[in-house]
């Protein structure tokens, strides 16, 4: 394939990428962001899949079976915690304007500059081989395309300007410069970059899927044929089981852990996961969609690896299978597509990684050094924001050049995966201080620093040095016999620990030392105030109120602050920031001079803006230089935190209390309502009683006065008057008796003597007692009693009183010719029912409950103003109902059944059968006629 065609294709691809990035940036400036979508966020995370994935997975699968999947299962595990843990990091990064993982760790441990520099240095050393790996992948893939079927020419043998990877590095460097450092922003977000990265993720996935489909369905007749062919040549083919994995089961677990940790701690992953995140809700979708992307890009790895192995010598290195397979089939276009896929994978990684690293270098290595030089710090006219960009640009080139150096000097001795895993192990050293710091408030800066140094040294000793030895820089005896022949110090078998693969071995020792130092030292050191403050803010980050707390108490003038910001952020950004606080200030202060005090919010915002550009350490130094007075110290912050949480707690309790009070108030109101009603009823009752008592008293008094005044009254008249007096007195005492009954019933003091009673006998007796009255009034009384005894539990006297009362009422209301009343006793389910019915006017539906109210009859009479009063106090029915209720039964009015008048029913529960006491009552149905 022609060299020029390849170069042209590669440059066109980079051109498209650049246009996309520029478009993304412009949209962001217009406020119409294109990256505010969980899918774009997910695709940007897929920058995880580098050339290592694209070329190396197949190679790994060919040599070490399913272990290549571990590199992707690890991130899957980490993403399952996305919503729990990464969200916390995103929220902290947003609130504190964090720009990189070095910034994050340093901010957690009291904005320690030493820690930030340390993390930056480790990151550079860790990532250099990784960048070298990408350069190697691009160069090798280019060489294969141009030289096939010859083996690609050996690298590193030419002078550097003849070495293609040098030019690849240079082009990538310039490209990264172009859209990685176009402007300084308060937050280190690169929207255009994210758009480009997302696009690259689509390209590399598509390229790999196309290749996979080609291998499985074009070269072979579907997966079945491919696997069958592979099975026949069993001697060359790995069996895809755990035995092919280096280190077996322990190697499996070790690599899984390594990939999980590195996924979060690699600087570029931190950049896209945390710094470039625009909305923490995107994490929800990404938590499962990103692992799904990983599944997709790994789907065809095993078939491609098997097909590559079947190719024999024509397949060349396993890392090259993805290119040699279509080339061996004689195709032109497909190898080109694969090449672009690989290029996408490599460039995405290199761009994001170098931007992340250059930010760290400029903020944590170069700027802190520059700030120490007094002349720079004191010169107010110098605009440092352009300096900052310059430093970043140089850093990008330097980093890429270091990557190239590593590649040129060491690259040949390793396969792609090996280099990647060495980087992973170094990046994993950030995990203890990063993750433990999120949840353990005690973790201290000293502990984190010593842990990082310890872990890094172990990493260097167990992975980096042996790598040098294998490249021939150091004697191989270092690996085989240990330094100075000390077997206990063999880098691949420290303290004689053997049986693990080299990565698990290195990870175990380095993390053990790292975590051990972090925990032990933290337990024995005291944190500084700022450290404690930051620790509290980080560990409590998911509590909503925490991050809004303003931590500055010191004072400075607006003028000073303005100058400071202009120097580091430029005019425009400073102006914007000050405008945000302009309105409040002018409204509140009448002195408009620039020397007025800057409000704490402005100072906090200024620090955040500076942090966004310079990292937290430098920003703090700068702010300290203009602000007089201290930042809030720990006590103040903790008390703010505690006060807010206490306030919340109080609020919650107050809410409960007030809800309770409201409920009680409601209850009281209704009780009061009821009391008033009762009071009214009592007044009415008293009025009624007085009225009722006065009527007979009036006539008694009148007749008594007549008898007293007219001594010569005739005897029979006198007799008549005396009769009236006696009758009215009887009525009076009956009335009083009833009132007393009612009072006892209502107060619950009524004594009843319940005993088994034969209701049939009792009904018969009651009829007998009142028969005389019916005969006098010429009313026909029809009685229908059951054949068997009807036992109930009741007070016989009281029950009889009720029955007689009902019969008497019926007698009063029955009318017409012939006036009729019936009494029926019958069984109803588990009860006995006694019904009394008359042929009177009846009781209207809506009146049926009211007849049981006290004096209802009187009220009605007063309303209708008629004198057709049937007699009686109006207390009979209420008393009857009260008595029946006391006996456990019911008394009510229902629709007439036989006579069209009123029908009153008593219901009492059945009692067990008793011995017959008295003589048998008359056999029913019987009839008594008056």
């Amino acid at each position, binding site marked *: 394939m022609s060299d020029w065609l390849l170069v042209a294709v590669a440059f066109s691809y980079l051109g498209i990428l650049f246009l996309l990035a520029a478009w993304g940036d412009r949209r962001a400036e217009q406020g119409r962001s294109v990256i505010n979508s969980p899918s774009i966020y997910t695709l940007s995370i897929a920058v995880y899949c580098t050339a290592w994935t694209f070329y190396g997975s197949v190679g790994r699968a060919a040599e070490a*079976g*399913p272990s290549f*999947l571990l590199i992707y*299962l690890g991130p*899957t*595990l980490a993403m*399952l*915690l996305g*919503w*729990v843990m990464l969200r916390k990091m995103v929220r902290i990064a947003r609130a504190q304007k964090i720009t990189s993982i070095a910034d994050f760790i340093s901010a957690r441990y009291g904005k320690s500059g030493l820690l930030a520099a340390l993390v930056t240095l480790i990151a550079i050393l860790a990532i250099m081989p990784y960048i070298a790996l990408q350069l190697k992948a691009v160069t090798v893939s280019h060489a294969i395309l141009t030289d096939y079927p010859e083996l690609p020419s050996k690298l590193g043998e030419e002078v550097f300007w003849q070495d293609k990877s040098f030019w690849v590095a240079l082009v990538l460097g310039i490209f990264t410069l172009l859209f990685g450092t176009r402007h300084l922003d308060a937050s280190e977000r690169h929207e255009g970059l994210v758009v480009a990265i997302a696009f690259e993720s689509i390209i590399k996935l598509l390229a790999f899927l196309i290749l996979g489909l080609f291998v499985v369905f074009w070269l072979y007749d579907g997966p079945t044929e491919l*696997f*069958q062919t*592979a*099975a026949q040549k*069993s001697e060359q083919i790995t*069996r*895809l*089981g*755990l035995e092919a994995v280096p280190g077996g*089961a322990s190697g*499996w*677990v070790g690599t*899984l852990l390594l990939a999980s940790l590195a996924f979060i701690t690699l600087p570029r992953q931190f950049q896209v996961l945390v710094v470039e995140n625009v909305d923490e*809700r995107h994490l*929800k*979708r990404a*938590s*499962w*969609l990103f*692992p*799904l992307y990983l*599944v997709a890009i790994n*789907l065809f790895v*095993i078939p491609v690896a098997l097909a590559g192995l079947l190719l024999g010598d024509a397949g060349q290195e396993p890392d090259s299978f993805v290119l040699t397979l279509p080339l061996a089939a004689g195709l032109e276009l497909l190898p080109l597509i694969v090449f672009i896929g690989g290029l996408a994978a490599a460039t995405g990684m290199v761009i994001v990684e170098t931007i992340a690293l250059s930010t760290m270098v400029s903020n944590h290595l170069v700027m802190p050094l520059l700030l120490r030089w007094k002349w720079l710090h004191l010169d107010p006219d110098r605009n440092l924001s352009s300096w900052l960009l310059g430093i970043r640009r140089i850093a990008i080139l330097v980093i890429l050049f270091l990557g190239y150096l590593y590649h040129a000097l060491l690259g040949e001795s390793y396969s792609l995966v090996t280099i990647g895993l060495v980087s992973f192990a170094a990046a994993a050293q950030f995990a203890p201080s990063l993750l433990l710091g999120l949840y353990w408030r005690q973790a201290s800066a000293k502990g984190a620093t010593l842990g990082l140094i310890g872990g890094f040294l172990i990493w260097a000793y167990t992975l980096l040095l042996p790598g040098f030895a294998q490249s021939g820089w150091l004697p191989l005896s270092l690996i085989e016999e240990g330094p100075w022949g000390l077997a206990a110090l063999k880098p691949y078998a420290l303290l004689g620990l053997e049986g693990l693969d080299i990565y698990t071995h290195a990870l175990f020792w380095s993390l053990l030392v790292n975590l051990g130092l972090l925990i032990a030292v933290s337990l024995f050191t005291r944190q500084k105030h700022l450290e404690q403050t930051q620790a509290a803010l980080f560990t409590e980050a998911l509590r909503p109120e925490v991050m809004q707390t303003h931590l500055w108490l010191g004072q400075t003038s607006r003028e000073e602050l303005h100058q400071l910001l202009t120097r580091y952020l430029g005019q425009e950004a400073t102006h914007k920031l000050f405008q945000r606080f302009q309105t409040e200030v002018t409204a509140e202060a009448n002195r408009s001079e620039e020397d007025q005090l800057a409000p704490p919010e402005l100072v906090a915002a200024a620090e955040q803006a500076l942090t966004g550009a310079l990292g937290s350490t430098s920003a703090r130094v700068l702010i300290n230089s203009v602000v007089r007075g201290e930042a809030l110290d720990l006590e103040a912050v903790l008390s703010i935190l505690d006060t807010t949480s206490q306030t919340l707690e109080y609020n919650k309790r107050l809410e409960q209390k007030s809800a309770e009070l409201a409920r009680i108030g409601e209850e009281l109101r209704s009780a009061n309502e009821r009391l008033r009603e009762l009071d009214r009823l009592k007044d009415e009752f008293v009025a009624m009683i007085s009225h009722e008592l006065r009527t007979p008293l009036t006539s008694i008094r009148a007749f008594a006065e007549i008898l007293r005044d007219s001594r010569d009254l005739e005897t029979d008249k006198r007799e008549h008057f005396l009769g009236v007096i006696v009758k009215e007195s009887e009525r009076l005492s009956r009335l009083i008796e009833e009132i007393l009954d009612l009072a006892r019933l209502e107060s619950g003091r009524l004594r009843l003597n319940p005993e088994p009673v034969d209701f049939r006998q009792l009904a018969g007796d009651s009829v007998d007692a009142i028969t005389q009255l019916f005969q006098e009034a010429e009313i026909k009384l029809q009685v229908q009693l059951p054949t068997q005894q009807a036992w109930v539990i009741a007070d016989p006297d009281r029950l009889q009183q009720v029955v007689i009362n009902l019969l008497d009422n019926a007698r009063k209301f029955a009318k017409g010719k012939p006036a009729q009343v019936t009494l029926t006793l019958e069984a109803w389910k588990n009860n006995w029912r006694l019904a009394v019915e008359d042929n009177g006017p009846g009781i209207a539906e809506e009146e049926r409950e009211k007849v049981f109210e006290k004096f209802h009859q009187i009220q009605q009479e007063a309303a209708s103003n008629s004198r057709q009063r049937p007699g009686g106090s109006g207390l009979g029915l209420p008393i009857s109902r009260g008595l029946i209720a006391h006996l456990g039964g019911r008394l009510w009015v229902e629709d007439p059944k036989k006579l069209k008048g009123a029908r009153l029913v008593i219901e009492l529960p059945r009692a067990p059968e008793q011995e017959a006491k008295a003589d048998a009552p008359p056999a029913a149905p019987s009839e008594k006629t008056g």
Partner: protein
Amino acid sequence: MKGSLLQARLVGLLLLALVLFTPPVLLVFDRPAWLGFSGLPLYLFAAWLVILALAAWLLEGSKDE
């Protein structure tokens, strides 16, 4: 769904994934399944998809906090 409940469920899912992706459960499937090839890769892909389906169901079904 309350936030803490969702978080607890996600942690539970992580534990399930850990069990599925590590020995000894892994060893159960690491035996010749087809044409002498180990069933391990097939099992890994299947378990992976099950875990992701569960994660998607948990996360997409929940309301924002």
